[in-house]
């Protein structure tokens, strides 16, 4: 890792780390025992730890002069490790919170472990920790391979990756201490948000600079999605997190947005976190790893264009479907509903494009568990977007809103689509990145696949049942015209489903642990692949290998 840096770069890295360390020191001094101060210590430990690593290898030999004609894969490898660690952590938190809903005393009577504080550790752990690191890994990989160019920086990829993980660590440790803005998926406080802006702008510039080095005249489809993911998330993040801290020595802040406007801004953000974090970025993965794994070009280039711009344009209108029948003005609710229904067209265009790409390779889907991960992901993508458009229709939402049906929809998307496409991509990426013949154990990939499928189905069916049951119980009237069930009746009816969900989630978690083990063993033990084709950037001599979009 450090060996890949020249002495000058090692010095620069140390300077940056020192600056961050000083910021942490200042935070600790100003904040004292406030969580702000504790986070100062976290920043110091993190930057100090990395600096120690750099110093340990400071006098290692310089990299060979040819490094610029190689792809830069070290940060990708570390990103994959982070992603898997967060997957296990985040899903463990998911199982724990799920269990708390069934057995509330599992909080052990402490503040840090009560449901309200653990819930965001789960969502942040899986979305930003697991998903985000996988996105960074694949974005770095795809942009280099499809542009046939090396990443446009030596230190900046590390800055993006390690800085991003610092953000995640500050976020999660904050929740345990009760530091949260309460905005779903934007819980971290102002200082973490500011830091993420710095990291994200670097990410954007790095990505753009790498694209600018490309040896292909055209930017490949997958990169469109990664670009949309990076750019739009930046806009959303900044607008939703505008806030006034009570002091520059305290963690607490108040958002500038009041009441109903805050609701609209929050769900404009929230829904597009789904769109550009949980969808666009992962579609980027799909458009690269699917054709690679299936060894077939993308079915239709025109369909890719249609779905890309449809998604980019329509999604941003849809946020108000989270606020049906609330105090938000009606015209906004109706706009949100309309665009959500139209959103089905580009969504299914992507899903259809992917399935038609597979057409003719079904025997591979049958034999290859990795390709099956990708295929199932596409099916769940189609399913959850259909469900989403359906839930956005006002009368349907009247039933589903506030219930477990939403949670069922979320996890059909999150487990079925996001996690499946990620694991499918990782199983494709890992052997090629570490130059192995294949995964350490194809049988374990198969085991993971079935654990994941079973877990997802149990989870989603339990939540569909409980959600619809709950919604119906809340609105059922007796013949005398009074409400038939108390709230408590509906709560008692939920317990069997909460237990089932915790069990389904446990299977999914076990699958993720199997994946982490298998990938670890692949790196350590699997036999090296014979060099088939040079996997190097185009320096003007050798023709590289990159998937061409079909016309």
């Amino acid at each position, binding site marked *: 890792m450090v060996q890949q840096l020249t002495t000058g770069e090692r010095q620069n890295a140390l300077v940056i780390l020192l600056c961050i360390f000083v910021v942490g020191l200042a935070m600790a001094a100003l904040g004292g025992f406030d969580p702000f101060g504790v986070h100062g210590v976290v920043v110091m430990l993190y930057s100090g730890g990395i600096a120690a690593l750099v110093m340990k290898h400071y006098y290692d030999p310089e990299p060979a002069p040819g490094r610029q004609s190689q792809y830069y894969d070290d940060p990708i490898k570390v990103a994959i490790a982070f992603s898997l660690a967060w997957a296990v952590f985040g899903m463990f938190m998911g199982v724990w919170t799920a269990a708390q809903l069934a057995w509330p005393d599992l909080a052990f009577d402490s503040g840090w472990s009560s449901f309200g504080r653990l819930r965001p550790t789960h969502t942040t752990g899986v979305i930003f920790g697991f998903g985000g690191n996988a996105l960074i890994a694949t974005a770095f990989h795809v942009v280099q391979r499809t542009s046939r160019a090396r990443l446009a920086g030596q230190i900046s990829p590390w800055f993006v990756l390690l800085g991003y993980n610092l953000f995640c660590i500050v976020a999660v440790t904050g929740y345990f201490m009760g530091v949260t803005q309460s905005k779903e998926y934007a819980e971290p406080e102002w200082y973490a948000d500011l830091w993420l802006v710095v990291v994200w702008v670097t990410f954007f510039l790095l990505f753009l600079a790498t694209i600018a080095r490309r040896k292909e005249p055209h930017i490949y489809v997958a990169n469109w999605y990664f670009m949309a993911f990076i750019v739009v998330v930046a806009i959303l993040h900044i607008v939703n997190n505008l806030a006034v801290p009570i002091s520059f020595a305290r963690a607490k802040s108040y958002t500038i947005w009041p*009441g109903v406007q805050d609701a609209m801004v929050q769900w*404009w953000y929230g829904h597009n976190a789904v769109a550009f974090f949980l969808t666009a970025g992962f579609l980027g993965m799909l458009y690269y790893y699917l054709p690679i794994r299936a060894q077939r070009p993308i079915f239709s280039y025109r369909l890719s264009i249609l779905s890309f711009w449809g998604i980019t344009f329509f999604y941003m209108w849809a946020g108000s479907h989270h606020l049906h029948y609330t105090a938000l003005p009606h015209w906004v609710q109706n706009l949100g509903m309309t665009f959500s229904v139209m959103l089905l067209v580009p969504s299914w265009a992507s899903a259809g494009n992917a399935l038609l790409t597979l057409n003719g390779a079904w025997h591979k889907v049958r034999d290859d568990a990795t390709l099956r991960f990708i295929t199932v992901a596409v099916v769940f993508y189609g399913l959850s977007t259909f469900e989403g458009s359906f839930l956005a229709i006002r009368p349907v939402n009247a039933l589903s809103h506030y219930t477990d049906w939403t949670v069922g929809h979320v996890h059909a998307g999150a487990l079925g689509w996001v996690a499946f496409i990620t694991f499918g991509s990782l199983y494709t990426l890992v052997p090629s990145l570490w130059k192995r013949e294949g995964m350490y154990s194809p049988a374990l990939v198969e085991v993971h696949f079935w654990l994941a499928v079973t877990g997802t189905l149990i989870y989603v069916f339990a939540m569909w049942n409980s959600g619809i049951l709950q919604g119906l119980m809340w609105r059922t009237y007796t013949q005398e015209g009074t409400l038939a069930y108390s709230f408590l009746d509906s709560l008692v009816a939920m317990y069997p489903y909460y237990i089932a969900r915790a069990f389904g989630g446990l299977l999914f978690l076990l699958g993720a642990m199997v994946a982490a083990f298998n990938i670890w063993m692949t790196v350590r033990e699997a036999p090296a692949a014979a060099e088939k084709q040079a996997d190097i950037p185009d320096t003007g001599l050798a023709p590289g290998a990159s998937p061409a979009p079909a016309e």
Partner: protein
Amino acid sequence: MPELFHRKIERTAIGFVIAIIAAASVGGIVEIAPLFTIHQTVEDTPDMRLYTPLELAGRDIYIREGCYGCHSQMIRTLRDEVERYGPYSLAVESKYDHPMLWGSKRTGPDLARIGGKYSDFWHVAHLTNPRDVVPESNMPAYRWLARTALDTGDLGLHLRAQQAVRVPYTDEMVANAAADAFGQAAPNSPFAAGVTQRYGEKTQVSAFDGVVPRLTEMDALVAYLQVLGRLTDAAYANTAAPQQAPNPTN
């Protein structure tokens, strides 16, 4: 075949980024900007009052503990919700809320009109261990709230920041924040009068957790729960079938 126009955009990274920003900006601008300019978005109500410092501290605890992950504070305009929880929520009721706490999940019931529904004593018992009061409940126990002293030192800073986001706290309110927090939970103390003077006669002044001299996080949280839905009576006037505002004798 003539070259698709799109093939041109694909050749310029900057152009592509600008196109993405343009396509993605429209929706948000059209839906968000008018909410600030169209006057009817938030109703006018003369009787809307501010959270007292103690209630604001309670609200911050509500946020800190993630109560919003299980409880909504937004009664929708649907018959069964109005019958179960009370008149549907109006935009003006969260006018001073930074952030709003409408929530998206009802593992527990809606709390938009919980104020006045139960006694302080009930809330303290319930928060201490919900299963003592409601055996079937899966709500976490919050025993430590009654053991933890409320940090009033920063309350002035909190009100100052609220001023900065345009909640109309006066400088006098900011200056007296800590004293008012104490006074609201100590009915017979010299500080109590200032609270009603500054925040209105309807402010509930009581020994929320039952113990006067010590101001705890439990005091603050219960004070907040008791004011929910009672910052204004507008919702009761507005509903098709008018309802009585709760008026408990605590």
